[in-house]
């Protein structure tokens, strides 16, 4: 009985222990299960966090890529604006530029107008041989005709139903995806761009279309600007060439004219010399005859001899003027430049001209507004200028008229003006006034004697002094001849 009781007690305790262990295990399993569930739940939550993080990273990456691309295009645009050379433009589309833009390969293809074929002008990420192969293939499949119909960039990748199925371009270009867009100038397609990525990590998307559009726009504009510049530059050079050619012709003509002028001067000079010798004899013999040493001279004969003498003197004067013009033109007359007192010179000229003035009862006024009394000039030649101009003024001014001499100081020159209240010069004759032998076609001019060499000689003398001469004239009111002489 005792044993039975002990056995039952032990069995009871064991059962209780078993039960307790079972309960503990069940609880532990439940707890483990619960823990496992929590871990799994946390793991599921981790998956959500990872997915969210991945999506955020993707957005950030796309944004960064776009910003970097736009920045790179901005840099290119800045550089393009500084060149008008088409080859330089293509040189800028180089490997660093392409990679910075976010592509691993890029081709710029333009239509060669002479052959009608497409030529790859810029290539990044391809060897020369690969570029040549692609160029040949493009021309073979006439890819340009397809591209030129497109207005927007076209995306090509292996997952899309696209032009790649037709031409297997991804393999030809050795890229996983690419974008292609036409280059347009003045609404005409002149080429296209292909930008692709080899790496699967930089798969091209529609988001990149904008970058490619901007790039094709920049290239198109740059090419157009370069062409316009080249045309403009060409026209400019042509114009310059023509101007140079014409200048050369004019220089040649000018040289010929100078030679002719010299020949004329030489001719006049030699003829004048030849004329002066017999004229001197004529004048001499006429004088001898007039003295009566060779026999009595009848009054009628004396009158004729005096005319011979008078006309001989006119002829000598004419010849001397001609000779002077010829000498000044040929530079044979050297001006003897000396300091001359303006006042003294004018006084002396007034003395000479006074008889003519008095004869016509003309009033002569001298207005000198200069404090500077000296000029450097050839005294005898300056006297000739004044005598010629004043004589003309007196000759063409009616009786009781006025002749005014103004002297003014202007910068480095002294300006002399001889003003008259004479008949004036007809407008049609104004351009010819300084021409040799010119005489105005009016009754008074025909009446007044003169050779038509005076003003021409005056102009030559003024210019030989590095001065200028001009005039203003109004028909019926008078003329004003002005000339300048340097002070020093």
């Amino acid at each position, binding site marked *: 009985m005792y044993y039975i009781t002990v056995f039952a007690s032990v069995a009871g305790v064991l059962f209780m222990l078993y039960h307790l262990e079972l309960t503990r295990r069940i609880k532990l399993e439940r707890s483990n299960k619960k823990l496992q569930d929590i*871990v*799994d739940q*946390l*793991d599921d939550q*981790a*998956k959500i*966090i*990872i*997915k969210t*993080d*991945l999506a955020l*990273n993707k957005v*950030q*990456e796309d944004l*960064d890529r776009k910003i970097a691309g736009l920045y*790179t295009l901005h*840099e290119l645009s800045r550089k393009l604006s500084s060149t008008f050379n088409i080859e330089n433009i293509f040189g*800028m589309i*180089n*490997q*660093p*530029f392409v*990679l*910075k833009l976010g592509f*691993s390969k890029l081709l710029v293809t333009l239509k060669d107008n002479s052959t009608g074929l497409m030529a790859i002008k810029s290539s990044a990420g391809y060897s020369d041989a690969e570029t040549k192969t692609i160029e040949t293939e493009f021309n073979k499949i006439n890819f340009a005709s397809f591209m030129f119909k497109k207005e927007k960039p076209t995306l090509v990748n292996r997952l899309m139903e696209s032009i790649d199925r037709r031409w297997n371009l991804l393999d030809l270009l050795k890229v996983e995806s690419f974008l292609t867009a036409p280059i347009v100038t003045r609404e005409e397609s002149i080429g296209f761009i292909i930008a692709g990525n*080899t*790496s*699967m*990590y*930089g*798969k091209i998307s529609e988001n990149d279309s904008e970058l490619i559009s901007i790039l094709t726009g920049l290239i198109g504009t740059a090419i157009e600007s370069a062409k316009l510049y080249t045309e403009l530059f060409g026209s400019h050079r042509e114009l310059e060439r023509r101007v140079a050619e014409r200048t050369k012709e004019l220089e040649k003509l000018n040289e010929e004219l100078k030679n002719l002028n010299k020949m004329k001067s030489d001719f006049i000079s030699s003829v004048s010399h030849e004329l002066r010798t017999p004229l001197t004899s004529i004048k001499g013999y006429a004088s001898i005859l007039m003295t009566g040493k060779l026999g009595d001279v009848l009054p009628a004969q004396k009158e004729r001899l005096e005319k011979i003498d008078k006309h001989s003197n006119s002829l000598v004067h004419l010849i001397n003027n001609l000779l002077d013009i010829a000498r000044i033109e040929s530079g044979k007359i050297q001006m003897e430049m000396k300091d001359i007192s303006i006042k003294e010179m004018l006084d002396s000229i007034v003395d000479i001209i006074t008889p003519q003035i008095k004869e016509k009862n003309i009033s002569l006024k001298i207005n000198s507004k200069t404090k500077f009394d000296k000029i450097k000039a050839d005294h005898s030649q300056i006297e000739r200028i004044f005598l010629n101009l004043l004589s003309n003024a007196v000759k063409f001014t009616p009786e009781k008229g006025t002749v005014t001499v103004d002297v003014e100081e202007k910068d480095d020159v002294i300006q002399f003006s001889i003003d008259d209240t004479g008949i004036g010069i007809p407008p049609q004759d104004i351009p010819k006034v300084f021409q040799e032998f010119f005489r105005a076609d009016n009754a008074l001019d025909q009446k007044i004697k003169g050779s038509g060499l005076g003003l021409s000689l005056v102009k030559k003398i003024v210019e030989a002094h590095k001065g200028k001469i001009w005039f203003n004239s109004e028909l019926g009111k008078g003329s004003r001849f002005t000339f300048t002489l340097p002070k020093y």
Partner: protein
Amino acid sequence: MYKNMATLIGTGISTKLDSFAAGKEAALSAYYQIEKNYPDILIIFISTIYNQHETIKGIRSIIRDTPIIGCSSIGSISSYGSHQDSVAVFIISSNSISFFCGIGDKISANSRLAGSKAAIKAFGSIKKHAPKQAYMMFCDSVSGNSADILRGAQEILGTCFPIIGGGACNKLYSSKTYQYADNEIYTDSVTGVIISGAMVLGVGQSSSWQPIGKPHKITKAKFNVIKEIDKRPAVKMYEEYFEKSFEEIKNDGIFKLGINYPLGVRQIDKNREYITRVPLTLEYNGSLVLNANIREEEDVSLMISDKELILESAKNAAEKALSYIKNTKIKFATMFSDISRFLLLRNDAYKEIDLVKEIIGREIPILGCYTLGEYGLLNAAESAGQYCFNSHSVSITLFSE
């Protein structure tokens, strides 16, 4: 210009969009800063947007014979800030520091051998009793096993010898990268330089990526390839977390996901520092090829980070480095930050450098670039002073007298 006793540092950065011109501009700018003194070494980092040969020609048009060391990158790090798509030329001119370069090739065939070859060449050039202070190396991060390259170098230099630097990278992420030694441009290689001279070093490294989701078990792995996680193809982990099919991940590229969401394999200290690995490629059987070794039976988690964590870790790394060289005068600093950090910080990338400058001193010249994986000292106490390779970290080294 940074003038410090007999050591001058010149920094030249160019973002010109012409390879030769950018190289020339950066070199000229750096050369002016060393007051036309004799340059002892050129440390260069060139973005892969540039034609590498043309850029080096541009640099050589200014400085002809000085040894060159460096690698391709997506951007440079300097006292002037962060410069994406740039050419960076750093010149060191010193009568107290010497530099000896080495190169090891074919890392895809044998990463360890390439690492040791480069170290042997660099180490072999140095005088026997000259004080060797650090080895800075740049490897092709996408063609080999970056941890094995380190192991190869450590076979020559020792596991506790300071090894800094990182993996060269490309703007197109997992595309070809370049390493420079003298006038040559290498790929699938590792270049390194022994820095010798009487100085004190302070090294600090910190990562900021933290696990998200539950841990998983690596059930089958060999070297740098994870074949199975939780007895399923390794890629399933990415498929489930990102709700993408195998084909989608294959087409988009596992690296694209992995660079932002790497795998964290173990916590190495109480400061929540993790060893991270980046999947470079996805194999058809679902295996993931990582940028460095991983062990079987380890727990693995998907990792995530944010801007604040990144900036905090930059501060940690700088403070760690500074703690080793208290009361000394810092000559210059190197800073290598993972490209994943740059991709996350984006326009705020300058903040990371600014924080470091605030800690080490604003006048200290900083030389560096963005790398794909970094060499450094992640936790001296836990690793017994052994240098390691980690991803997603920032590695800062201070060189002081």
